[in-house]
């Protein structure tokens, strides 16, 4: 009995062992907490990203690891008119679609910010195109843009606007505008709903004060809404530009880059060359060529965010 009591007394002021100290060490603990995420991101994101750049300097094909050939892939692409066409298409697609997405999205957000009956339901409906998998809605557009049985052509014909069916996806410029339209359709809800969240944080008293001072609706928008919304616009548009620039699904389902490569984006061209054509090195070079554009978009967003902090007088933490 006494022995046990003695033992217990001895046990209480136990020296923390190395293991105990390690358990309490937050850096050591953090390693364990970060491990699962780090394993995935390193094995399947960081490593392939580096590997992609490396592949672009090799002549790798499917089933054969390539040897280093320096800039040969890039030199070949430099003289490849299809590649330049895809760059042109990508820029056109990104610039036109993002601009319209921003304009329509902001307009829709402003509309939804008004007092409306059934607002919650309307907002939920607006977001549906964003929920439905892109490929599935792209198939619906494919059917809507059918050269023979398009309901759009039919309706316009009934309204006597056109005489013959529109060849939506078979004509070079028609195809471009059609895929851009589908992309806008898909992207507007995202822009609108996120901007709406930003709009809801703007205090109504600012508008009331401006109205009393005689501001027109345009002035209220230009000098109150827009400046207060700038930071969120910067982020939303970065995402929008980024995902439009690297779009693959819509194009692949609707046109596969055709007619005569008129809708090939850099992403679809790299898939065609690398996976279907088997030229991994060349495809990787096209992918790598997209990185500078993406970095540019990220930098723009970054400085957009910095500006907000500077405007609000906050420190850069």
């Amino acid at each position, binding site marked *: 009995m006494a022995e046990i009591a003695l033992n217990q007394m001895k046990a209480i002021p136990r020296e923390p062992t190395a293991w105990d100290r390690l358990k309490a060490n937050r850096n050591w603990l953090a390693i364990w907490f970060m491990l699962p995420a780090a394993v995935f991101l390193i094995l*399947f994101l960081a490593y392939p*990203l580096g590997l992609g750049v490396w592949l672009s300097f090799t002549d790798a094909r499917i089933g054969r690891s390539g040897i280093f050939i320096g800039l040969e892939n890039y030199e070949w692409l430099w003289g490849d008119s299809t590649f330049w066409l895809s760059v042109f298409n990508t820029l056109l697609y990104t610039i036109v679609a993002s601009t319209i997405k921003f304009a329509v999205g902001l307009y829709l957000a402003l509309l939804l910010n008004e007092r409306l009956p059934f607002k919650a339901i309307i907002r939920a409906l607006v977001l549906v195109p964003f929920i439905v998998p892109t*490929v599935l*809605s792209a198939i619906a557009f494919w059917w*809507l843009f059918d050269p023979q049985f398009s309901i759009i052509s039919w309706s316009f014909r009934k309204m006597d606007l056109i005489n013959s069916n529109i060849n939506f996806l078979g004509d070079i410029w028609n195809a471009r505008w059609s895929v851009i339209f589908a992309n806008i359709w898909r992207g507007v809800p995202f822009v609108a709903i*996120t901007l709406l*969240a930003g709009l809801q944080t703007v205090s109504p008293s600012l*508008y009331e004060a401006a109205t009393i001072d005689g501001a027109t609706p345009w002035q209220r928008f230009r000098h109150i809404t827009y400046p207060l919304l700038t930071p969120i616009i910067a982020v939303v548009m970065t995402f929008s530009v980024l995902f439009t620039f690297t779009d693959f699904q819509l194009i692949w389902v609707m046109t596969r880059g055709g007619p005569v490569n008129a809708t090939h984006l850099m992403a679809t061209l790299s*898939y065609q060359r690398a996976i279907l054509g088997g030229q991994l090195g060349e495809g990787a070079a096209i992918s790598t060529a997209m990185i500078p554009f993406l970095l540019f978009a990220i930098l723009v967003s970054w400085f957009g965010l910095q500006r907000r902090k500077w405007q609000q007088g906050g420190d850069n933490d």
Partner: protein
Amino acid sequence: MTDALAAKAADPKAVLTGSQRFADDSEGMSYLNSLPRRLVTLYLPLSIILFILLFPFYWMALTSIKPDNQLLDLDTYSPFWTWNPTFKHIYKLLFETQYPIWLWNTMLVAVCATAISIVASVLAAYAIVRLRYKGAQWVGGAIFLAYLVPPSILFIPLSTVVFQYGLFDTPFALIFTYPTILIPFSTWLLMGYFKTIPFELEECALIDGASRWQILVRIVLPLAVPGLISAFIFCFTLCWNEFIYALTFISSTQYKTVPVAIVTALVDGDIYRWGSLMAGAMIGSLPLVILYAFFVEHYVSAMTGAIKE
């Protein structure tokens, strides 16, 4: 001419006095807008946009239940409605193709990848926000950058990586690669949620002798349930939506996911394919739409939460 101008000039005032009767039950500055004005500036554009946004889905649903002869004959029957709905296309899709298997594949991949990602992101987000180890801020920034790396520039090297690891043409190729899209997003989202949980709660628990693991499981996670639901739904949707990895890494028909299978296996030369194609697209989007209908608020907060930070 002058009359018209005068009427125009007088109009705003007339509108103003006309609407003052309603001024009492309106809020803010809404009394400035009369009903006709709202009709033109608000309801009309809103309904046009809503019509364009929703029409493809109506068309999708209508096509999937129209009989074949009405699908291709727009002039005899009104194309905007059908009085003889048929379930032939849906029946054909479910019982004569491998569609149920593709649905199951998509579900399996989405659930597994989402579960892996949420576990990994909860741990990572907690460590970044609350353990605040050396360099935690840098890791947070790196994770945001990882979010910005699009799948379209990764799929070529990833396909060789997947081949090296021996995962090519198995569901694991997708289950292990989708988390690279999901982890950055959900970590970023959960970081925001964890920051809102009062630090004092954790201090109390630490003083009471709880380990970090106990704090995470018993205190932080129960408080972060809305964030977890948001992250789960958004990840699930992203998985369901993913196309390029599934297209590149899977070649056997029995392992394909719905989006890939519809484009590669269901599209054939048949002129009457539209009915079953649209049925496939509709049934493929239903699970997400149903999920979305129940969790709209979580969905919106996931979308805006990931951007706010």
